[in-house]
């Protein structure tokens, strides 16, 4: 005989399983389809976000890999900037991969573009060099079970500095941070969406679920 759930628990378990979470991937430019396919593998529905009005229904948003200058320009042009600010202030989950990490940073060491200041980190673009310097590496990603994570770095940035409340969860051998997390925001310098390993996507889904739980007052 199964114990009946308390009402609040019942609500959380029926409303916040993977199939009820709504995740969006900013589809202005870049490899948004690859992210959507990864979430689909995890049984989470993910939509392409091209207009700010689509953010209203979402529990979490990914800003994908692409060209950061292009994504910043289009985000400004199509009115995303105040809406993204509100999205983060509302306690919803946000994840930037590679170009996405650059876009959401508070500060860049580069003069161009002007980032959207959604996470208290300082980022350097193209830190490893040009395309011929792109590479793969394996390392521990704190919070993931199993083998080290195989990470694909393509003209990748690194994190040069983090503010209060931001922790480093993955580093290269030399200690350079390549994945960082604050309460509801995740940033990775590499591309989990270009591998078959769904563990970082699963990690983000857990963040989305927790953020949704908090917002619903179900903690």
């Amino acid at each position: 005989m199964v114990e009946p759930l308390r009402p609040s628990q019942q609500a959380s378990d029926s409303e916040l399983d993977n199939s009820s979470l709504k995740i969006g991937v900013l589809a202005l430019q870049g490899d948004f389809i690859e992210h959507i396919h990864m979430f689909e593998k995890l049984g989470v529905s993910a939509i392409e976000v091209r207009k700010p009005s689509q953010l209203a229904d979402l529990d979490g948003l990914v800003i994908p890999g692409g060209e950061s200058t292009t994504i910043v320009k289009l985000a400004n042009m199509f009115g995303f900037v105040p809406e993204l600010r509100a999205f983060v202030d509302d306690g919803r989950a946000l994840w930037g991969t590679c170009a996405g990490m650059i876009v959401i940073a508070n500060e860049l060491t580069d003069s161009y573009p002007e980032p959207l200041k959604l996470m208290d980190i300082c980022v350097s673009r193209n830190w490893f060099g040009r395309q011929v310097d792109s590479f793969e590496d394996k390392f521990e990603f704190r919070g993931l079970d199993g083998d080290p994570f195989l990470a694909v770095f393509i003209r990748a940035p690194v994190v040069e500095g983090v503010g209060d409340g931001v922790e480093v969860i993955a580093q290269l051998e030399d200690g350079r941070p390549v994945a960082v997390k604050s309460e509801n925001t995740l940033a990775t310098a590499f591309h989990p969406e270009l591998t078959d390993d769904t563990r970082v996507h699963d990690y983000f889904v857990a963040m989305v679920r927790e953020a949704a739980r908090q917002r619903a007052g179900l903690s």
Partner: protein
Amino acid sequence: MDTTGTPATTAANGTHAKAWREGSKPEVGNWREKSGLAQMLKGGVIMDVVTPDQAKIAEDAGAVSVMALERVPSDIRRDGGVARMSDPDLIDGIINAVSIPVMAKARIGHFVEAQVLESLGVDYCDESEVLTPADNAFHINKWEFKMPFVCGATNLGEALRRIGEGAAMIRTKGEAGTGDIVNAVTHARQVLGHIRKIQNMDEEELMTEAKNLGAPFELVLEVHRTGKLPVVNFAAGGIATPADAALMMQIGVEGVFVGSGIFKSENPAQMADAIVRATTHYNDPDMLAEISRGLGGAMPGIEANKLADEEKLEGRGW
């Protein structure tokens, strides 16, 4: 560091074919990074530029990459003569002017031009029919490079042969330098229509199809199973307006190259900006109507169907 970091030049011949057969991508030349950069360009516009100032205008307009050239295709077409790789000083100047990836063209089969481009730090090499071919029979063995390659194709067999040689990105050839979209449409429909046909075949039919296409069987099998090219597929050759870019995106390509269409138009910065916006909102006619307003003249064009056969660039490559 994983073995995928092994430089191509140390790999024994035959490694690539074996890797394809075993269903994994070849480990030389960092296949995942080479094809992965093309993934990052998707939904974007790659613009031909001939000066650092033009490169900056392209970057400001939201181009995902620029193609560094001495002359845009319409000028190459007008001037005639042998068209070659650009001067390294020009390419360096453009590399230093922008933070986005820089592409440059090598002649078909001219692997030394490609070696020079790789040495300059070019992010993507276009083995291009716009330049005068250097080899009448063979393309560059692109597996030998760490720098990724994009190649033109007019049909699926050609696209799969280029991928078999190591191209990490495909584009339609179209008819460069004309401002006429008709051949880009024809080539995209050839490639995408043929993919749909192969997807619906029985597996028994695939070997004969590979023979007829002149394409590697393993890649035909992959197309059958996935319903798409194994690499990113852009349109090029004749795109001159925001509506042209959106047309190609709706037909099913993943991004666009604009050659002469920007800096041969009346207002290059506005045209560049408009084509970038149209490539994102390609499926939204209301948005496209707004984007298309008041841009001034597009590039003066040449009707591709009226070109004599020897004037066409699309037949270059084999």
